[in-house]
């Protein structure tokens, strides 16, 4: 039950960042990471007095929820970091030093605070990487001013200038263009919204969808139920949605409930498309191919299935293969966070420190990991955007894959332009722009 409560913390991990005009990461991605610093500077091994830094190594720690986690282990995050570090180290490291994960801790789902305490006390790490469900060690990391690179699925991310992620601070209740536009593309005039009533974030996520359709009324929210319990049967919900003519169901639930919904829709013969907020999992999709056929998933980053592959994704696959790990959603996120860390180090210069890495990253207004993720403006995106429209991204973007025969097929974008974006102040959803952030 509790795990059910916690699992839906993930639900709100919907895209929130937008693009900006300035560009800080420029150099061409040949076979190594990109940076603004000259190659000669990157090899200067100057004495540095900082935690976890020796003349040969820069050590980082990782804290991920591996065990007791209903959604599965977050360990692949570390694989992604390792892949990126392997690439950097194969190219001579940075500042004459190798990047090393010296400590890989499991917070066991409910022991984040204790794990953070131990890591800070024992690991002597320069930075921490994290993917966790219950982020209770947030104040410790913030107080220690430890640079943190995390998978942003936690509302606790907001308000901490030393935290960085693959996405800015989350806004659960904000009205966005993307879902109403998607409804329009699907030809849905009546949509349904389902969320858990046992978790505030899930409820807020449902309110966000409702707000989106209020602001951009491409379809009517004909059914709204934000009071589900965990692992609940959905017979009455599906019956009512079917009676009301719902053809697009948006949910703020975990994979278990998405599965239950798909089964019930199939049982009752309800023809509707389902959005899967946590569905970017090829294993789940391939094992439930018929049930999930036609469902739509919106990954936080450029879907890995897009062709032509952007160079950053090619490099991810190349180095994952070299260190013999598989590429999952979390592997990609790990790669993105490691790239962000590297960018911070490179920008801080050969006499880097924790503070200078943080300071450099906080000057970036358009960081995209070479187009892998939506632009991040770290001068703004640490702040909670819920009640502060000024720190919301100027663009509202999404990229989508559709489930077809148990596989993800990129949809709604264009070749080389996977993102569908809207200007945030556009009062309609009639002006989408297909975009790529590679080289932007």
């Amino acid at each position: 039950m509790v795990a059910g409560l916690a699992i839906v913390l993930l639900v709100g991990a919907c895209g929130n960042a937008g693009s900006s005009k300035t560009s800080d990461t420029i150099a061409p991605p040949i076979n190594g990471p990109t940076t603004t610093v000259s190659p000669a500077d990157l090899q200067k091994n100057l004495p540095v007095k900082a935690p976890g830094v020796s003349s040969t190594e820069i050590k980082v720690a990782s804290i991920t929820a591996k065990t007791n986690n209903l959604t599965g282990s977050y360990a692949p995050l570390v694989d992604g970091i390792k892949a990126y570090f392997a690439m950097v180290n194969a190219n001579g490291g940075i500042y004459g030093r190798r990047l090393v994960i010296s400590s890989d801790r499991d917070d066991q789902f409910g022991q984040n605070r204790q794990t953070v305490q131990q890591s800070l006390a024992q690991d002597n790490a320069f930075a921490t990487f994290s993917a966790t469900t219950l982020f209770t060690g947030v104040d410790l990391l913030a107080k220690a001013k430890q640079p943190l690179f995390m998978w942003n699925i936690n509302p606790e991310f907001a308000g901490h200038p030393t935290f960085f992620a693959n996405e800015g601070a989350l806004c659960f209740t904000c009205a966005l263009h993307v879902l109403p536009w998607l409804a329009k593309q699907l030809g849905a005039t009546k949509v349904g919204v389902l969320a858990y009533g046992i978790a505030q974030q899930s409820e807020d996520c449902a309110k966000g969808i409702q707000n989106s359709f209020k602001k951009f009324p491409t379809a009517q929210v004909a059914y709204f139920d934000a009071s589900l319990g965990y692992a609940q049967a959905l017979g009455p919900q599906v019956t009512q949605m079917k009676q009301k003519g719902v053809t697009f169901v948006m949910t703020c639930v975990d994979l278990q409930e998405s599965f239950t919904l798909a089964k019930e829709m199939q049982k009752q013969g309800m023809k509707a498309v389902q959005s899967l907020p946590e569905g970017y999992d090829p294993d789940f999709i391939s094992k439930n191919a018929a049930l999930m056929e036609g469902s739509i998933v919106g990954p936080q980053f450029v879907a890995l299935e897009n062709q032509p592959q952007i160079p950053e994704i090619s490099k991810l696959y190349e180095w994952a293969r070299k260190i013999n790990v598989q590429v999952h959603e979390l592997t990609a996120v790990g790669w993105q966070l490691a790239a962000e860390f590297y960018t911070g180090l490179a920008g801080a210069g050969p006499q880097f420190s924790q503070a200078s890495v943080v300071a450099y990253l906080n000057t970036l207004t358009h960081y995209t990991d070479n187009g892998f993720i939506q632009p991040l403006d770290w001068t703004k995106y640490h702040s909670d955007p819920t009640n502060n429209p000024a720190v919301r991204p100027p663009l509202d973007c999404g990229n989508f894959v559709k489930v077809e025969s148990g596989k993800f097929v990129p949809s709604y974008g264009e070749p080389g332009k996977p993102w569908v974006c809207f200007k945030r102040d556009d009062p309609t959803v009639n002006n989408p722009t297909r975009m790529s952030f590679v080289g932007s």
Partner: protein
Amino acid sequence: MQQLISNILSGMSYGSVYALLAVGLVLTYKTSGIFNLAYGAQAFVAGAVYFDLRVRHGLPIPLAFVVAVFIISPLLGLLLERVLFRHLRTASPAARLVTTLALLVAIPQILKLWFGQNPQYGTQGIVPSGDHAYNPFGTVFVSRDDLATIGITVVAVVLLTVLFRYTALGLRMRAVVESPRMTELAGIDADRVSMSAWMLCSVLAGLAGVLLAPLFAAVSEFNYTTLVVVAMSAAVLAGLTSIPVAFAGGLMLGVVGEVVDAYLPTNSVIASNLRPALPFLVLFLVLIFSPSLRNRRDLADPLAGVDPPPPPPAASIRSRSLTNMTRALGVLAGVVVGYYVFFHAASNWRDVAIQAAILATIFLSITVITGMAGEICLCIATFAAIGACTTAQLATRFGVSVLVAMILGAALAALVGALLALPALRLGGIFLSLATLAFALFFENVMVKFDWVGGGALPEPTPRPTFGSVNFDTTTNKSFLVLCLVVLLILSIVVIAIREGTTGRVLAALGGNEPAAASIGISATRARITVFALSAAIAAIGGSLLAMYEGSVNYNPDFVSFQSLFWVVLVVSIGSRTVEGAIQAAIGFAAFQIVVLNEVVPWITNHVQPWYHMGQPPQTLAIILLSLGAFTYAKHPEGVLEYQKRKSLDAVQRGIDWFKGRKDAGNPSSELTETAPEPLRPASARGSS
């Protein structure tokens, strides 16, 4: 009307799932006297085995089904009976409950060493094309999987009813539960009957595990345990005795849930709070108001009176000089450790010390309710949460001094505890435990969601106190550690005073013989309400300290209902009758993380894992070790600490005797123990030897 009929029929499909689980719970209780909280874990084993054979290895459905349900499941039942439950037949209800709690934790973790930690997608049922649906009545849809579940559940209920009503084996099973010793006097092999009963129960759990699998996206123990909690309501509705009523109760829960889903407005506060909590509300209300449960106690052996009383605490038979020496050594060790932690150790050791002090404070509430009153309360974490939330709300939103807020939180928790105790008083043993569990789940599903309780999406901040010129800051945590130790000391003194005062003696009398105690005018009601309120207040103070320490009320990791279960297992295993037991349990728990998980487990990972790849073994192994420790409770209900103390006392005594014998040969040795009786062994220990 058409809609209502449709909902009722649809609800029966899910209701049959609850019914199957409820029937299994009742069956286990009827045949073993044990309310098997690990029933979901047993079902998970069968579900996982079936998945492995059918999905991973592609075995035909009948073969996979037979192996999972009729081979592996009864073998598991046999194993549990031979290793554990045979020795618990005459043990106290608390010992039985704690053992099943430990199994609930341990079984899934052990299984996952083989099955894997990650969700295993692609579940399948026992009929081909199980998703294929029929709609015989227009708007009613039933899948093949539903039909299989309903059909097999009905058949199982009929067979079980026949077994218990009309066969000799059924009669023997019931007799063994009533009194194994009396049954053996009648020439029946109680061991064999008990073994058969456990195998039968395990088959039913296996059946549930396999039939429920296609309901879920992945095979996961969480799904099974969640449904078992719901099924408890139906089992309790049946008074844990009637299989047909449990079946009907399960169906009813499914139907009511479906109707509520269909007719309650979906975006109202009532709906969002009531719907997830409905099963727990039903469980609580049934426990409180069901006439059949009035004054109901656990099954108890009529011959239990011939058992010797539990052994006296080691401290009570120790000589004064040895007691003083022990205390002096304890103080010395405390000073040395304290000095090291304060002035030399890394900061995380200070954190460990604070966590231990706070946990010990919370654990004192278990000392009061379980150690003194003999009841298992499964909402200790909820009482702690009430304290934490009250403190946070009063301090943050109303500017009340945080220490005053902590006291007000304790008062509120005491009030809630007393109110909870009032209707629950007539319940005892497992029924009281279930009532407290239902309350915990209700609080978790309903109350915490309110902003004015849980604080909303983000945890409610909780400041540290300032006391005069002392600021219990977060920089070094030294002053806060002192505060926690002072609170722990004060509460320890209070608990000892109560245990040795009138209330403690009253509870001891009630524990010895309640009717006799009542005949001399002892009021069980007043004593139990006092104990409940006191226990709640102590837990609340601990909860408040935890919130202050962490800077916010982190409900999910700190106060979830499962936490209570784990804490109870831990404290009763170490020793719930003494303050020392609570403190040692807390120290062990806090230090476990830093010593075992950070030092021992990495060693195992490095040295063992290369030989045998176990997925993610470290924490899994740790949880298993901790859970298996609880099984010692079956052999030593007085707790590991007390058992070891008595053993140490014997060893010291022998050493001194030997020394004295050499020193003044021929002279009688002076007794170190004042009475030094031959330690009496409880019935459970005798049974296990």
